[in-house]
């Protein structure tokens, strides 16, 4: 290095030589040696000084992890009335090793708990190949009374353990079951999906309703404990604890009292009721009948209970308000009227003649009123639900124009409610039929379509959003069922505000014509929905009677078949007519007539809601 010629003698002095490097390398040893001494000392401490202790800990694998399940979030109605709670469940286990002699212990246990001895033996034998210090679960949820009995006899029952776990409690049992949903053990398929990353076998997850849709908020965060156990597997001490974070609480949009009212009104029939606040899209009630008790999913079904539940022809598990699809029947005339006016094929003054039937092609299409309505305009046609009038409007429009107005009003499309498994319904177009059935559209089919029969299918929720947007002057809101998420200490962490999904494709002038017709339905001299009339409250609405075509020809008996062939009854309504505060859609399966079966339910619900809110308004203003 020294012989390297340098251009600058000043620089040359600064270029390090070999000795310079050597000195600095030796300096490094001052770090290396102490570093190793440090490691060696630690090793000495762990293995020699404290080795005995660690050897003992290792022999029984003494340090274990125990997980702590977080309490699941609660669910409340809009007035903080508790709907879904957690309750303690006492789970009985036995540690075989500590319970010797096993026969005597199990006999005693059977005597005090009244659990058959064979059952206890069965559970113990099932787990014979696991270490005897591991607890064997004998029975879940033994109940407070049995627990008390066991506490008294504690000393006669060695090795018996009672664990407290939290279980879901659906406080109102059958009420709002379809909205709330239920929880169940995670399945192997769900465990594999990305959506449930971080879950483990045996975890409870929401399986339907709000429990499912809001799983991420409700679940909370798992905690755990580092514990030291002795040779018998018994807890010696807790080394460290990470507390579980409780799940968040969910606040719903409805008032439980009105929800209960809707359910009571439906109690004798199969069907659905949806009530909405037309100014916000808040769901005020959503009932589906028959219902089921979600607590059965927690406590377990007997085989019989499960069979009756799934074999019931009225499908209690289905949320008919959002999952069942029905022909909209005459409620659809609102769409035909809207399309006719907007497209200019009729106007307010257009009169068409109804002689009681309409001949098209070689078929006779009848009006529900045998004698006919005579010369009739749009207002009366809505009020008296004249089929022949709307046949002619429909013919002038054609299937595709009708479909675009139906979609524009939210029919045949998902409403976007915060619940899973919503059905979309069906609004046919010519292209749809060609694609689906391979046959061209027949103009005759448009006739049935224009009065809401044929391929048309909608959900009660879709009709509720439609009538709600008519009521509020044309704004389509996304229905809101969950309003707020709060953490366990009551702070709001998320709030859902009214969300505009779209606008009705109708001008204010034409909407007024339709609204006038809907007022006439309930208040006019020959309106079809006069039964919904309430003294002191102006109600507007529309009836519908959906024909049912039986697919089951081999039904067990005649009366049953007759029942299945009865038409579905619809009623959609809003009130007060001038300044609507509630919009309702009611469907009664096989209720025969919209006016007689569905309208009274809507009327009573409206009455309950408006009387209640009026009385509360009065009391707050005083």
């Amino acid at each position, binding site marked *: *290095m020294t012989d390297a010629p340098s251009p600058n003698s000043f620089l040359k*002095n*600064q*270029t*390090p030589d*070999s000795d*310079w*490097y*050597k000195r*600095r*390398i*030796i300096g*490094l*040893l001052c770090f*290396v040696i102490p*570093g*190793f001494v*440090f*490691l*060696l000392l*630690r*090793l*000495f401490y*762990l*293995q*020699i000084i*404290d*080795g*005995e*202790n*660690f*050897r003992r*800990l*290792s*022999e029984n*694998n003494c*340090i274990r*992890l125990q*997980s702590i399940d977080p309490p699941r979030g609660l669910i409340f109605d809009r007035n903080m009335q508790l709907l879904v709670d957690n309750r303690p469940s006492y789970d009985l286990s036995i540690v075989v090793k500590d319970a010797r002699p096993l026969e005597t212990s199990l006999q005693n246990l059977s005597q005090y708990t009244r659990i058959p001895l064979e059952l206890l033996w069965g559970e113990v034998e099932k787990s014979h190949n696991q270490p005897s210090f591991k607890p064997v679960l004998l029975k879940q949820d033994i109940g407070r009374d049995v627990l008390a009995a066991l506490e008294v006899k504690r000393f006669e029952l060695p090795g018996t353990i009672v664990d407290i776990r939290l279980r879901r409690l659906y406080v109102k049992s059958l009420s709002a079951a379809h909205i709330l949903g239920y929880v169940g053990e995670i399945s192997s398929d769900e465990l594999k999906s990305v959506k449930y990353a971080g879950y483990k076998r045996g975890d409870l997850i929401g399986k339907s309703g709000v429990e499912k849709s809001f799983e991420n908020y409700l679940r909370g965060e798992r*905690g*755990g404990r*580092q514990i030291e156990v002795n040779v018998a597997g018994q807890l010696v001490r807790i*080394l*460290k*604890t*990470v507390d579980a974070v409780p799940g968040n609480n969910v606040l719903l949009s409805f008032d439980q009292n009105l929800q209960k009212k809707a359910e009571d009104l439906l109690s004798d029939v199969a069907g659905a009721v949806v009530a909405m606040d037309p100014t916000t899209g808040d769901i005020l009630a959503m009932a589906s009948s028959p219902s089921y008790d979600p607590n059965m999913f927690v406590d377990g079904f007997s085989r019989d209970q499960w069979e009756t539940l799934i074999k019931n022809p009225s499908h209690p598990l289905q949320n008919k308000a959002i999952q069942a699809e029905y022909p909209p029947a005459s409620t659809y005339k609102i769409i035909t009227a809207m399309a006719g006016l907007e497209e200019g094929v009729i106007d307010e003054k257009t009169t068409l003649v109804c002689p009681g039937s309409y001949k098209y092609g070689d078929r006779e299409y009848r009006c529900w009123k045998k004698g006919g309505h005579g010369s009739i305009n749009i207002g009366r046609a809505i009020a008296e639900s004249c089929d022949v009038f709307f046949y002619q409007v429909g013919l002038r429009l054609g299937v595709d124009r009708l479909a675009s107005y139906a979609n524009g009003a939210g029919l045949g499309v998902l409403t976007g409610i915060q619940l899973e498994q919503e059905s979309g319904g069906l609004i046919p177009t010519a292209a749809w039929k060609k694609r689906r059935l391979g046959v061209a559209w027949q103009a005759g089919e448009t006739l049935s379509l224009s009065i809401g029969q044929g391929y048309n299918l909608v959900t009660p929720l879709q009709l509720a959003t439609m009538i709600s947007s008519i009521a509020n002057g044309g704004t389509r809101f996304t229905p809101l069922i969950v309003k707020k998420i709060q953490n366990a200490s009551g702070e709001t962490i998320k709030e859902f505000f009214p969300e505009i999904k779209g606008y009705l494709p109708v001008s204010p002038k034409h909407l007024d014509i339709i609204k006038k017709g809907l007022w006439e339905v309930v208040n006019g001299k020959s309106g079809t929905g006069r039964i919904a009339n309430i003294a002191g409250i102006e109600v507007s609405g529309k009836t519908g009677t959906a024909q049912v075509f039986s697919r089951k020809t081999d039904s067990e008996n005649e009366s049953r078949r007759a029942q299945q062939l009865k038409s579905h009854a619809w009623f959609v309504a809003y009130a007060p007519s001038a300044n609507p505060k509630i919009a309702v859609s009611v469907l009664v399966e096989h209720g025969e007539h919209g006016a007689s079966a569905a309208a009274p339910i809507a009327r009573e619900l409206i009455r309950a809601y408006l009387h209640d809110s009026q009385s509360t308004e009065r009391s707050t203003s005083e």
Partner: protein
Amino acid sequence: MFDRRLVQNFDWMLLIITLLLAASGLITLYSAARAGLPITQAFFVKQLMWYGIGFVIMIASFLISYKQFDQYAYFAYAVCIFLLAAVLLVGKLVAGSKRWLVFGQISLQPSELAKVAVIIVLARYYSRTASTKGMRLRDLVIPMLLIGIPFGLIVKQPDLGTAVMILLIAATLTVLIKIEKRAMIAIVSFGTVAIPMIWLLLKGYQKQRILTFLEPDRDPLGAGYHIIQSKIAIGSGMLSGKGFLKGTQNALSFLPEHHTDFIFSVLAEDWGFIGSAAVLFLFLMLIIWSLNIAHGCRDPFGALLAIGITALIGWEVFINIGMVMGLMPVVGIPLPFISYGGSAILSMMLCMGILMNISMRKYLVE
């Protein structure tokens, strides 16, 4: 062409240390691999294969003169940067991070190679710019870039352990080459200002992760639990160990990552204080020996290269063994020669080859 003196000067001592470490690594891995699923048996066979390839690389890397590394330093560095970039684009995602490039059956971790590349490129740069007065701030701009690029790419994977390792190696070389007092003050004061500011910019969960990294006890269900199990495994080995294949903590899979980061615990449980102190001593021998090689080298590049490799081995041993004994943050740094991992074995054998290269050519430098 071939100089007879090369054979005469071959560093047999280094080869013996290397072979002894490789043997203890394979024995321990055999013990660790016995636990759990049959698939873990494959770890041992694969590791054996990696050592086979590693020996070929070692021999290849001492046949050519290490001067070639000087010449092609920037080229090798560029290749490594390219591979690191490729990992981020097409790498295999495992447990949330992209660290591997997959070629059919084989997956490689370019970050392991990057450690060696950074050593070579810094040795080249410092061998030309070193001054007895120390480096000025402006002299350090280029090294900072040379370190910063791979560091950034590895942090992005994310592989915090390897990134920190690159910083430590580079810092060791830079401090050794001497930093001017004013530059040192500037760097330290910049650090004291910047670190709290970066801390403020981090998100809650990122802070949490760093705090857990520094103090495993904050996570008693994860890292904290692993450290306890590791300490139990090591401590329960006592003076003479439970015997080969007799470790219970390992056998029942109570130890996490027992074939990679926590392999020292398996060794300490099986062989006790006697065995683990012996392995520690082997590492100390290796470090002193390679410092000796640096000391005997009359060419700055060779000396710096040997020091860089020593720093790599020294830091990895210190941090890994410190971690499993509960003295260091829990970070994914392998134990050289012992931990399972193809890329780490290959780059370690490459390093041994380079050390032998420098050692046998010390009398040939003109």
